[in-house]
């Protein structure tokens, strides 16, 4: 994409601030911010709006910092893939060390901010999430196992847990269930996408499940994780952590998830396949998570206002 001439020119110039912003993966951040806000709002107890904002800011900065470290570590892989070859590092618009330092700085500030403003349990969890994503996932397991999506899902599952703990100050069953929901949601969400999007992960040696184990195994795994997700999504209501608003939404949404996963799990691709069931499942999975977490907040608000008898 980038020719040699502008690349040498770019190397002499200071990096644009927008490229630093790109390192934080702003699009992934929207989900992080949304689930973190839901964790803060759904937790029982009160947090001052300024502190609630600070907690969400710290979580977002931690996510941004670990994303920058991910860019730094995978710069050579990104250079080999069409989707990522124009990122700031493989595009030659930023020095490798700058990305690393930016990531470490952002992560350190996020943990310090959380510790000072909110508390050290939430800060410790945030540090754990950063290390989990940047080190355990990115550096260690992603290039080694086709279950990498499952492990990566763990990283995405931290924000609502940390948001909740920022309010309550302790870890109970409810925030752990929120963690588990995103953890089990990620594999069917991502593998549905992987089935219909031609990626070149194989080219750079990342063992994605559809490539390594084949389509049939991937479809079965989608089914397994969807079945596991259903009781976990309903559990917050079943253990009495929420009211009927969340409970009914969770039951309906999960039933629909199962219904849409069924054809994906059982069929095989034909020649000239449009992959409609897979596309439908992928799109629905996004709606599923947003509505489920919104219902969690609506449930808490309704209980707080005394609307639920």
């Amino acid at each position: 994409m980038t020719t040699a001439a502008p690349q040498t020119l770019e190397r002499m110039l200071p990096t644009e601030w927008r490229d630093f912003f790109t390192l934080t993966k702003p699009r992934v951040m929207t989900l992080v911010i949304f689930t973190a806000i839901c964790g803060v709002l759904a937790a029982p107890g009160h947090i001052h709006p300024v502190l609630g904002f600070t907690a969400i800011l710290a979580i977002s900065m931690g996510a941004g910092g670990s994303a920058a470290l991910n860019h730094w570590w995978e710069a050579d892989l990104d250079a080999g893939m069409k989707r990522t070859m124009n990122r700031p590092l493989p595009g030659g618009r930023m020095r490798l060390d700058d990305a690393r330092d930016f990531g470490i700085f952002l992560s350190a500030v996020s943990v310090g901010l959380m510790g000072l403003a909110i508390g050290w349990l939430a800060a410790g969890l945030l540090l754990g999430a950063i290390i989990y994503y940047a080190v355990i996932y990115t550096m260690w397991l992603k290039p080694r196992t086709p279950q990498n999506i499952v492990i990566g899902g763990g990283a995405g599952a931290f924000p609502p847990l940390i948001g909740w703990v920022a309010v309550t100050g302790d870890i109970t069953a409810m925030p752990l269930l929120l963690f588990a929901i995103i953890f089990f949601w990620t594999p069917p969400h991502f593998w549905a996408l992987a089935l219909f999007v031609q990626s070149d992960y194989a080219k750079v040696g990342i063992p994605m499940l559809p490539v390594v184990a084949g389509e049939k195994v991937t479809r079965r795994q989608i089914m397994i994780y969807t079945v596991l997700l259903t009781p976990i999504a309903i559990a917050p209501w079943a253990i009495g952590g929420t009211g009927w608003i969340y409970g009914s939404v969770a039951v309906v949404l999960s039933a629909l998830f199962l219904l849409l996963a069924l054809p994906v799990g059982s069929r095989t691709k034909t020649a000239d396949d449009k992959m409609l069931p897979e596309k439908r499942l992928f799109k629905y999975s996004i709606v599923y998570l947003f509505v489920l977490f919104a219902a969690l907040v609506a449930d808490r608000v309704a209980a707080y206002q005394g609307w639920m008898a």
Partner: protein
Amino acid sequence: MTPEEEREFTRRRKARNWVVAGTLLFFVVLFYAITIVRIGDPG
């Protein structure tokens, strides 16, 4: 550096400086607000 490169260099440095200044200002205000809230917090 050619004059065009120099102009581009200055433009980028300036833009970055503004972003850093804005971020610092934001954190000054945020820390002030956090301090006020936590002082008023009986817990």
